[in-house]
């Protein structure tokens, strides 16, 4: 494995790991708040147990998120020093604000966790709101930094060095809105369904359990609403990519030849050698319609670009298919569940259990689309990933080490969550 590949793999692995904890930090506070709000309104203690249980899970995830995030902030420099030297001053703003948001989140989560009987109820609820706001802000801010890598603006290049830097413009680059929105919704969707699946599993074993039934409903409400709006947000992202990153779009769709009225490709195995796709289903005019909202629009194909600017087409293509497939499936599932709820029927527990990892899978796949689709660039159009990598040799060593560490950490976290959050409360706790 070359050092560049090791560095890329380590970065990808660390980010893929961190993102899971990041979305929990963004979305769980909302679930907690809904439960707490119902407790305040109805006075039913089961809601308070639920909020406490969820907040305990959030605290465990928060701790792991902080550790893996600390590692990431070093890795940016340890693996990509040239990139950070170039980009640090430009995208430092969202990173600094993220640190601030994280700190606020930690403080208010502390009050929330340990303050149930110490602060007035309304103050406690407001602390929860602060946790939600700062957690979500954290996520959006880092995504702004990432969006800048896709849409580098806010500086002038003079003699190969960035000058005239405008950090605010860089932070609010053309991709920030689309990516920030899509990411935030993805967080609520993936966490909502993951939690719903866990409680559905417990319900399957113990149908009469009120605790799990109420938990399931809250999680499903949050995840389901997100799943219904996500395709619209995905459409905004796709149209932006079509305008600003045509190679990425072409790779996502394995679209080799430039044409007007381009068809939408579903599935299929791209054959990069011969610039064709095997076994795909084509929907006429679909791609032009989706990417530009015009059936006759011209969509540029990969053949328009030099080969050394192509991202790894099959990876981007498969990842995109996975994300969109899951996105469509989950939106349909959400509709079905809401209908069952409306007519007062039991939720499809088996389906919900099967669906619980799907949101997280789509989330990871979406990031693969964004990041691998940007290759060979680390800053789109300005700096290649190969120019940014550290000169330090033997990068396979830290890559292997961190992979093993994260495997251990994942295992620990899962077993802890199993012990603390998933188990049913004792009968007397719920009365």
């Amino acid at each position, binding site marked *: 494995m070359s050092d560049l590949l090791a560095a890329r793999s380590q970065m990808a692995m660390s980010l893929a790991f961190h993102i899971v904890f990041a979305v929990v930090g963004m979305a769980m506070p909302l679930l907690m708040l809904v439960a707490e709000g119902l407790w305040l309104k109805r006075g039913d203690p089961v809601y308070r147990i639920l909020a406490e249980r969820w907040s305990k899970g959030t605290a465990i995830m928060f701790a792991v998120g*902080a550790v893996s995030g600390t590692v990431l902030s070093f890795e940016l*420099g340890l693996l990509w020093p040239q990139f950070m030297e170039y980009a640090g001053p*430009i995208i*430092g703003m969202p990173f600094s604000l993220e640190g601030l948001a994280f*700190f606020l989140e*930690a403080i208010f989560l502390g009050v929330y966790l340990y303050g149930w009987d110490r602060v007035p109820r309304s103050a406690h609820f407001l602390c929860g709101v602060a946790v939600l706001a700062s957690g979500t802000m954290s996520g959006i801010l880092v995504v702004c930094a990432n969006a800048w890598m896709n849409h580098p603006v806010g500086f002038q290049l003079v003699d190969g060095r960035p000058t005239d830097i405008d950090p605010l413009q860089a932070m609010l680059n053309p991709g920030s809105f689309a990516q920030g929105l899509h990411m935030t919704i993805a967080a609520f969707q993936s966490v909502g369904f993951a939690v719903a699946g866990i409680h559905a599993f417990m319900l399957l074993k113990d149908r009469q359990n009120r605790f799990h039934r109420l938990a399931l409903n809250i999680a499903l409400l949050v995840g389901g609403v997100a799943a219904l709006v996500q395709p619209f947000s995905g459409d905004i992202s796709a149209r932006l990519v079509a305008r600003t990153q045509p190679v990425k779009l072409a790779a996502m769709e394995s679209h080799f030849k430039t044409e007007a009225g381009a068809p939408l490709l579903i599935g299929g195995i791209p054959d990069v050698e011969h610039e064709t796709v095997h076994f795909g289903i084509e929907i006429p005019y679909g791609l032009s319609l989706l990417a530009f909202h015009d059936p006759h629009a011209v969509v540029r194909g990969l053949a328009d670009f030099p080969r050394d600017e192509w991202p790894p087409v099959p990876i981007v293509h498969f990842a995109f298919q996975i994300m969109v497939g899951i996105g469509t499936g989950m939106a349909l599932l959400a509709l079905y569940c809401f209908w069952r709820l409306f007519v007062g029927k039991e939720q499809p527990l088996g389906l919900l259990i099967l669906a619980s990892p799907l949101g997280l899978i789509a989330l990871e796949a979406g990031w693969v689309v964004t990041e691998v689709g940007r290759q060979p660039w680390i800053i789109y159009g300005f700096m290649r990933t190969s120019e940014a990598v*550290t000169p330090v040799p033997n990068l396979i060593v830290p890559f292997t*080490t961190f992979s093993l560490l994260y495997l251990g950490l994942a295992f620990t*976290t899962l077993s*802890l969550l199993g012990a603390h959050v998933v188990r049913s409360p004792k009968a007397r706790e719920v009365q």
Partner: protein
Amino acid sequence: MIDEVTLLATALMVSLILYALTAGADFGGGVWDMLSGGARKSEQRHLIARALAPIWEANHVWLVLVVVLLFVAFPSAFATLMIWLHIPLTIMLVGIVLRGTAFTFRHYDPLGETDPRMQRWSLQFAAASVMTPIMLGVCVGAVASGRVPGTTFTDSWWHGFPVALGFFTLALFAFLAACYLPLETDDPALQDDFRKRALGAAVVTALLGWLCRGLAPHLPIPLGIEILVAVIGVLAVGSLWTRRYWLARSMAALQVVTILWGWGLSQFPYILPPTLTFHGAAAPQSVLRVMLTALGVGGVLLVPSFLYLYRVFKRQ
């Protein structure tokens, strides 16, 4: 004189000091956890765990702030550091991950103390608590002695002074933690356990400090700072001896502040002595201004929130 660059250099040092004062004490706690023993072994461990628990995750934020300040305000220095100190920094990160895992597990898991799995977590916690401060000290020592950038990826830090400074940092953090801990309990016997440990750590820290000074006689540390460090050390030991725990805690913290501040003063205006200055490494002015504003806004939001947290928990 006081321009944006100086202000940001100050912010960098303040944030490093805050990391040493908070996370440093956590690491030190890990050392005492490992060295717990005698009649009150398990009480000692419980005390340490209780003192660490509520805030430990947040402490790394100061280290992250150091990183962010470096890459935003002094990007070329950041890149140089990350390349030439790649190995010690990576080991430090491994320590942070291992420690976080072990602590979370021990904190949340209802296993008994005698459970073999618990012992394994304890071992991991201890090893990580030792490894991380040493590497932090090695990095500081490498910068202070002007070895960054080096000629190879090891000679930039693998040398007498940085390594000795690593062990000094460990001892200093252990001393700091031992001075914090007596105030976290009302049990006089337990207080005394940590008082004795603090006195022991003071001796080790002083010896290692003396060794470090001997290994790097050319470091331009102002005489005033050296005298101050010695006086504060004596005061700290004196207050421990006479069981004035608040004074001991304040002196230990002041000691850490003085040492780091003294290091900063002695090498200013250089960020990476002997050649790269803060001004030479600084990002464009527009960036520095925005960064300072962000820090100001951050302070305005954080201070009241933090006071609120503090008030809620002191009212118990």
